[in-house]
């Protein structure tokens, strides 16, 4: 028994050591959960929809993986792919940074939009990608999203947006700010046509994206424990000169304050979206004018 215990302690030590070495970044085939500190085999993690099997933490997803999880296989057809990053301020080093990033990540911008099917129902799907400059919104992102919204209008399709963003793309200055107005105005048009818009907030959704299309869904869903807010926690803490309570600006916090409709775990997301789409497919009551 004592030997068992010693063994266990040794094991724990070993695990602890391994965890420390792994740090917070992915190393080879292994990744550490920064919530429960468990070391996870990457392939296992991905099979589990990138949700920690130990503690349920929802890891951030690339647009590619997200689309794979949500769209029916082989149905996603990208739109706006030719809209690429522009450099309106001629900001020093920006394009170079973008090109390097593009090469490294094989991602061309912070959002991917397209038409696809979800359990056989046709939708316009937009998915932001946090791996590209923290999912920040510059002109290309605003343009792709606006084009997606306009496509939904033209084809009379519902729209689903998965949001993840650090906010405005600083390097594009005022032009990035204007994308908030552009995308919000397009949503206004979508509304006039009576089309459904579901916004899904994932970790983290902040700044200019929160203050535009992300907050304008007919139905707003969120993944568990996502950080969602306008001002970032660090900025708030600097302003009020105190620490924020745990869970401030989390999905659960937003639900409690009435700003989202529902928290949906990743394993249930596709089914929930499909259900909502079905509930809107038949249209409302018809009255004689």
């Amino acid at each position, binding site marked *: 028994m004592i030997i068992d215990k010693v063994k266990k302690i040794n094991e724990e030590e070993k695990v602890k050591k391994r965890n420390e070495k792994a740090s917070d970044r992915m190393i080879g085939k292994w990744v550490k959960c920064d919530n429960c500190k468990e070391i996870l085999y990457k392939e296992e993690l991905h099979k589990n929809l990138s949700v920690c099997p130990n503690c349920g933490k929802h890891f951030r997803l690339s647009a590619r993986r997200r689309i794979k999880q949500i769209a029916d296989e082989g149905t996603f057809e990208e739109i706006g792919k030719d809209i690429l990053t522009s450099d*309106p*301020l001629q*900001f*020093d080093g920006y394009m170079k940074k973008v090109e390097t990033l593009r090469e490294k990540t094989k991602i061309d911008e912070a959002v991917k939009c397209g038409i696809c099917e979800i359990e056989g129902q046709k939708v316009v799907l937009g998915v932001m990608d946090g791996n590209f400059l923290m999912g920040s919104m510059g*002109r290309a992102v605003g343009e792709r999203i*606006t084009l997606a919204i306009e496509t939904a209008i033209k084809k009379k399709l519902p729209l689903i947006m998965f949001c993840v963003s650090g906010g*405005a793309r*600083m*390097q*594009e*200055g*005022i*032009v*990035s*700010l*204007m*994308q*908030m*107005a*552009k995308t*919000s*105005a*397009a*949503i*206004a*048009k979508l*509304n*006039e046509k009576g089309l459904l818009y579901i916004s899904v907030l994932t970790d983290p959704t902040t*700044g*200019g994206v*929160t*203050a*535009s*299309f*992300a*907050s*304008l869904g007919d139905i707003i869903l969120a993944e568990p424990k996502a950080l969602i*807010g*306008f*001002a*970032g926690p660090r*900025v*708030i803490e600097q*302003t*009020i000169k105190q620490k*924020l309570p745990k869970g*401030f*600006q989390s999905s659960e916090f937003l639900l409690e*304050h*009435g*700003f989202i409709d529902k928290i949906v775990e990743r394993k249930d997301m596709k089914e929930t979206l499909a259900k909502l789409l079905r509930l809107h497919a038949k249209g409302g009551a018809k009255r004689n004018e």
Partner: protein
Amino acid sequence: MSKTAWDRVTLARELERPKATDYINNIFHDFIELHGDRYFGDDKSIVAGIALLDDKPVTIIGEQKGKNVKENMERNFGMPEPEGYRKALRLMKQAEKFKRPIITFIDTPGAYPGMGAEERGQGEAIAKNLMEMSKLKVPIICIVIGEGSSGGALAIGVGDKIIMLENAVYSVLSPEGFASILYKDSSKAKEAAENMKLTAKDLKKLGIIDKIIKEPEKGAQNDFEAICENIKEYLLKEIKNLEKLTEKELVEQRYKKFRVM
């Protein structure tokens, strides 16, 4: 000597610089201030109400900074909370009902990043304004008079015409915030300002704004009457032009204006 971007940031923030209420009192008459968002409170960092422009009733929304510490405390340094944006929206909708043009004065370091503001949906409040302003069926003219910073400025900035005072600045974030994000050092604000393209001239060139209102060398307070005269003349002319459009044309034109940005 030509001014640097930072010179203009400094001028735009001067305490003595005319604030929204100065313009309201000088350009319009019979102003009556209206209060409250009908949900939670009245945000004093946004002044709003109805007044006459010559003999024409208009709705005015202005972000209000103070001219001293006491006034600034009262006005929260011109940093609105959700209630401010919701008050603005309520009165803009009211303007639409009574077919009054809307004039907004932008002057804010940004929306207030506080706990209460987040709890009460700062992001949602701004988003809602952007969406609703884009489809209001009355002319909207927005004037950046001092500091226009971030979504907190844009939340009352979706107009048919956007104009700026010569020494006003308009940007995605304050130069300090920008520097702390991109240079990881907020003390590099000066350097940031030069790269951000935030002056009226830069924004005109980028096609974001429609007109620049000239200022005297040392800032708007030095020839305030003339500036008010110029703004008034512009408002009268442009409101007349915008009112020639049908409601549908007006809204479509506004959509296209932001669509190409």
